[in-house]
């Protein structure tokens, strides 16, 4: 059972989604505005935030950034209307882990929530038999404790960022296509939104202080995808 904070301004949608998520076995707290949601964040201490991007007053994007500033690792799923293309990209760059397009079926939303929470809890596939702690240059990855350190300093990663890094480092040198990463990290199908991968790589590079022109660890292979290489 997970604790879900739902921030949604429309009462009917809020009530319907909360009801459906409760039926799926989640503990749900609902907030009508961004301000109220941030308030509940402290008192409710959720495992995951489901955030509508179209909010009156404080926008979903502002809420997303605020949540990220408070907690680098708290999973966030954005609920958005398809066609709000710019908002999706900005939301992903602001640190959202995933997004769903409204109207969304309860079982789809539930599956996404569980997938994101699995990212926060489990090891990446294909990592069996690897040493628990491995260093790549200045980067140390602890697969048991699910922590990452650069120059000995721990860096706080959101679940998608952590899972992405674990997946890439499990096979250094191997090129992963965006579709492979979507399936392995986000548990989306093959035709999912590759911008999730690109935005996540961008965030990861920023947190790893990668030089923008010449990244040392995560390399872009044009036309194919990404690969990890220890410098």
């Amino acid at each position, binding site marked *: 059972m997970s604790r879900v904070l739902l921030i949604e301004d*429309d009462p*009917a*949608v809020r*009530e*319907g*989604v909360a*009801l*459906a998520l409760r*039926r799926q076995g989640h503990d749900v707290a609902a907030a009508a505005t961004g301000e109220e949601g941030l308030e509940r964040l402290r008192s409710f201490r959720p495992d995951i935030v489901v955030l509508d991007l179209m909010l009156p007053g404080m926008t979903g994007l502002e809420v997303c950034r605020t949540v990220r500033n408070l907690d680098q690792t708290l999973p966030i799923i954005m609920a958005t*209307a*398809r*066609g709000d*293309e710019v908002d999706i990209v900005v939301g992903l760059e602001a640190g959202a882990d995933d997004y769903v397009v*409204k*109207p*969304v*079926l*309860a*079982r789809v*939303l539930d599956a996404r929530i569980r997938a994101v929470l699995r990212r926060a809890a489990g090891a990446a596939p294909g990592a069996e038999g690897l040493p628990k702690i491995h260093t790549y240059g200045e980067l140390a990855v602890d697969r048991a404790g699910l922590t990452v350190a650069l120059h000995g300093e721990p860096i706080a990663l959101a679940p998608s960022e952590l899972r992405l890094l674990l997946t890439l480092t499990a096979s250094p040198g191997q090129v992963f*296509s*965006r*579709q492979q990463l979507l399936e392995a990290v986000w548990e989306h*199908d*093959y*035709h*999912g*939104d*590759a*911008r999730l991968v690109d935005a996540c790589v961008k965030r990861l590079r920023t947190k790893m202080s990668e030089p923008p022109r*010449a*990244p*040392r660890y995560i*390399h*872009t*292979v*044009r*036309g*194919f995808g990404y690969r990890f*290489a220890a*410098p």
Partner: protein
Amino acid sequence: MRRLRGLRFRLVVAFGLVAAVSAVTTGALTFREARTGVLQQSQDATIRQLRAQLNQHAAELALPPERSALRKFAEDTAATESQGSWRVLVTYGDLSGSSASGDPFTEVTPALREAVASSRATVFQRVRHDGRTSLVVGMSILFSTQRIPDSVETASGVRVFLVVPQTTEQAYVDALVTAAERAMVAALALAVVLALLAARGVLVPVRKLRLATRRVAEGRLDTRLAVNGSDELAELSHTFNETAAALETSVAELREMEARARRFAADVSHELRTPLAAMSAVTDVLDEDAARLDPDTATAVRLISTETVKLARLVDDLMEISRFDAGAAVLHLDEIDLAESIRRTLGSRGWTDTVETELPPPHAVRARVDPRRIDVVVANLVGNALKHGARPVTVRLGGDDTVAVIEVRDSGPGIPSDVLPHVFERFYKSDSARIRSEGSGLGLAITAENVRLHGGTVRAAGHPAGGAVFTVELPLRRAEPTEEYRP
């Protein structure tokens, strides 16, 4: 060739012709009058002078004269002309004497001699010899008794021939010709300049008009011309401006109406989405609990649940179409293996076993596409084939270095030829009585828009062996596989 028929060329030719004809006519008339006047005057003066000399000296000549007397007479006569250009020949029967000894006097033709012999009048002739023009005057010396009026004059038999070179007169005439020629050249040059100016006066507005018309044809309806003056061209420009303004207004109105209609469709879809979001969220709850309700209520609840899902899909499709109409649809390009993409599309919809595939080996056909939109294209075509055609349904992928070709073929009755042009239209139903299909009626329209967005083409046709074939051609747009950074 086109330039030779141009207005500029025609104006230059017309002005030039007019100028040339005027100059030649004026020049010719002036030249003729002037030449006649000049020559006549000098001729009269010469004859008058000669006659006066002869009158003065004739009395001194004894008859019959001797050769030396004749020569002296000729020399005396010639000497009266101060510049010494006169050559005088005096004859008497077979005797002759001249002012210039040994001069053959070729200018004095036998015809002239004959004319002088047979006439009492003064005879003159203009002779051109060795490139020089000379005036030859011939006359007989007559005697008369002055004291007896009306007495018959008698010929003395002495004939005087005078040859005067007309170099001055010739030079004068030549100068006239040169002046006329120069005037004509100047007139022609002026005419050409004037023609070019006139052509420019006409052509510049015409060119502006042509460019403006082309701009309007290209859709720039705010094009206007500057109206200068009040001539016919200015009126034409004014009319052009009025027409363009009217066109602009009508088109703006049409666009406004169209935009309003599209906005309305988009707004309706958008407004429907919020209640649908609430309804979609709880359909699973309805489905789960329906079994515990009494049969009628359970049926009603299940109906609401399934129709909600369909409605959600219809609204989603409507929103998608609205975005295409608004030009807001964007491609999120990624290079993928198309065979793998097709396999995944079939797999995720449970069609792997119902649809036959002819796919190339992995990575044989890679293309830069929007994976989600290609998924929609393939799913809509296969779904359409399964629904309206008959099995087996075959998906084939092929292509070359620049284009990928996806072909979806069914084994049904095919599409009637009168329906073929309409299959990609929105909500088009070939049979109005047909039972409502599962799709939104927008599937093929969205397919066509997605393919077009990729810069590709989609067409429907009947297969010779029966069944319908939908063929999608997509440009590959592949990037060279290079690494952004090599460690």
